[in-house]
């Protein structure tokens, strides 16, 4: 499998954006994750050659951080905060309720491939606990009902 010329163009665009920066690898990994939903081997190889950074180092970074995936996940990502404050205020019940609704375990993706459910460490919304993040948007001060409403809306959303 070779890098398509379309993908190569996209990567060249990212590389150009990263041009003025001192911290390039993390920036590019973010761009690649946003664009393709995961860090692909061919794309990473191209970036490695362009930046003259060993591919092994890029792969090490890609597997270290929570946000970067090396295999595709669902189009929508729900992260339930399991930090101590959210935990003390009932995030476990919310997690279990969402698991029941989606019929998957944490770390899994629904059958139709649309929604991935993850647990996270504290996301810094302790004054609005319990909280969850859906596709990067934070929802605070939830209870089981409001949380399930958000998830059902997502299911009906269809993307």
């Amino acid at each position, binding site marked *: *499998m070779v890098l398509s010329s379309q993908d190569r163009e996209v990567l060249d665009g990212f590389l150009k954006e990263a041009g003025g920066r001192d911290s390039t690898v993390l920036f590019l990994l973010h761009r690649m994750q946003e664009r393709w939903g*995961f860090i*692909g*081997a061919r794309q*990473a*190889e191209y970036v490695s050659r362009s930046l003259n950074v*060993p*591919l*092994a*180092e*890029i*792969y*090490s970074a890609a*597997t*270290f951080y929570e946000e970067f995936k*090396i*295999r*595709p996940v669902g189009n929508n990502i729900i992260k339930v905060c399991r930090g101590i404050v959210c935990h003390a205020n009932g995030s476990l019940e919310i997690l279990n309720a969402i698991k029941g609704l989606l019929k998957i375990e944490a770390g899994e993706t629904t059958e139709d491939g649309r929604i991935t459910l993850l647990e996270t460490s504290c996301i810094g919304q302790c004054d609005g606990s319990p909280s969850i993040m859906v596709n990067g948007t934070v929802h605070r001060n939830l209870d089981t009902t409001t949380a399930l409403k958000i998830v059902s809306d997502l299911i009906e959303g269809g993307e």
Partner: protein
Amino acid sequence: MKLKVGIFGLTSCAGDQLAILNCEEDLLEVFDALDIRVFTMASSGQDFGMLDIAFVEGAVITEEDIEMLHHIRKNTRRLVAIGTCAASGGVATGKDILGAAEAYKLVYGDTMINTAPLKKAYPLDYFVEVDYTIRGCPIRESEIIYYFKKFATMDPHKNQPLPLPIEKELIEDVEEIKDHVINYLPDKCISCRRCVNVCSEGLGVDAISMVGRNWEERVSTPFGSNFAKTTCIACGQCIQFCFCGALKEREYNIRKLEDVLRMKERVVALVDPMILASITENLRTDEPENTHALMRKIIVALKQLGVWKVFNFAAAQHVSLFSTVRDSLSNPDRRKILSWCPSANIWISKHKPEYAKYLDLDHRPGPIARELIEKRYGPVFLVLITPCTAMKKMSDFDAVISTKEVSRLIQKNRINPDLCDIETVSFDKFIMTEPYIDVLADTPAIDGLGDEVVDYAMAFLSKQNVFQKFELPDGTVVRTIDYPDVHIRSATVKDLTKADDVLKNINEYQFVEFIPCLEGCITGGGQYPNTNPKIIKDRLRRMESYNQGAIHWSNRVLKARVYKELEGLLPRTCHDEEVS
């Protein structure tokens, strides 16, 4: 997407297949994730198409077994051996130890039973490449479920770094496995990082890195690729630094090796004396320091194992230097990077491709040895016995065996080196037929070949010289001879991370060599793994004493004679080869 799985049994009691069935309800959960195309015990119908994983139990005994096994291997991406019979031959090998007739008598007494003669029992990896092995007799039920679940998301490959790629295209062809000389076993890894440190900071190769976080942290190649597809140069230093056996060289199935040596015709061995550096750390002998005696004992042992002729690989290295110098001094447009070290060759082609045009691949010792040997003896099955990992990738030889493999061969066949009669033993000759010269010649590869190269240049130019040798701050060793109209400089670079200094000024040197292994061949990937400085010193001392007692090829008389003999034998070559 469900994985397509097949479960097969060759000659077996079917105990492992039964164990799988015994898992009962747990199995249903597994069957959800895996698409079981064929399960010899549980269903009939053998058309299974291309599988992702084939689980095979049983030993390989009958012709049908062999055919079936090859058929399965061709039609599956991964082959997993389950149970002791598949892993190592199992119960059925019992009769092979006694001998079929004896065993028969023991069980059946004098009863005559009409049957075809019993064949030997072999494990799966005697015939085909096996990707993963689960032992047990039978395999444990809890393990079955564990492995089924694991393989549903993890590629069952020996080289199994985490996490794994989703792109099927990265799971390579069975054929490509040949190129794969380093194996990583994640179950044995304790995440000590020594291998990553040496590969990254020690060598600047960066083929592996620490991957994942917390308890899941492991060593891995990028995206789990085959080492050969990464920037790996197969130097095997990672193997040397791993004290848990998580990184290993790819080794032959030892029974297969024995059979090849014993049954193939005209098997000849080229032995690199550098194996003496570490072999006594495992091979027991009364006088480990008497390296010449030990070499002779090994020659005797090899012949007992079935080898027809045993040659000195150091001789091939010397000859390669002859021809290098001869061709390059007379050719202004010469290639100057010595190519005796296969790992350095891979390093140039992968890491410094802009200098590949300087790489003198035509004068590699392997092809030269084969040419000279076959000229004298006709076609042979050429085996190299070496402490080098990268040599295992070279198609110059028919088989490449490491220090560790040869030691195991000798011991497993109960050959006691000290009982070998070495009175009149020496290497066989493929050059120089004069009997009074004992070709137990010195091994040049202790410190690189720089000394010899410059020596030969001197001999060819046959003039008086002023020879100088000095070391640069980064460890590079430079040798020069200077006289009125000729100026010869050779550089031996031992620290690859500082190689650019020499490469940028390559035009100032007539000969350049690169040595990835940290102490040269003394710590080659095929040596016994050891990084204890005292032991490394012992190894160096042993090899230096070997050299001192050997005939020196720097002996002018010897050189002149060899030169005359080779002049007619070695054709001048042109520079058009690719490095693999």
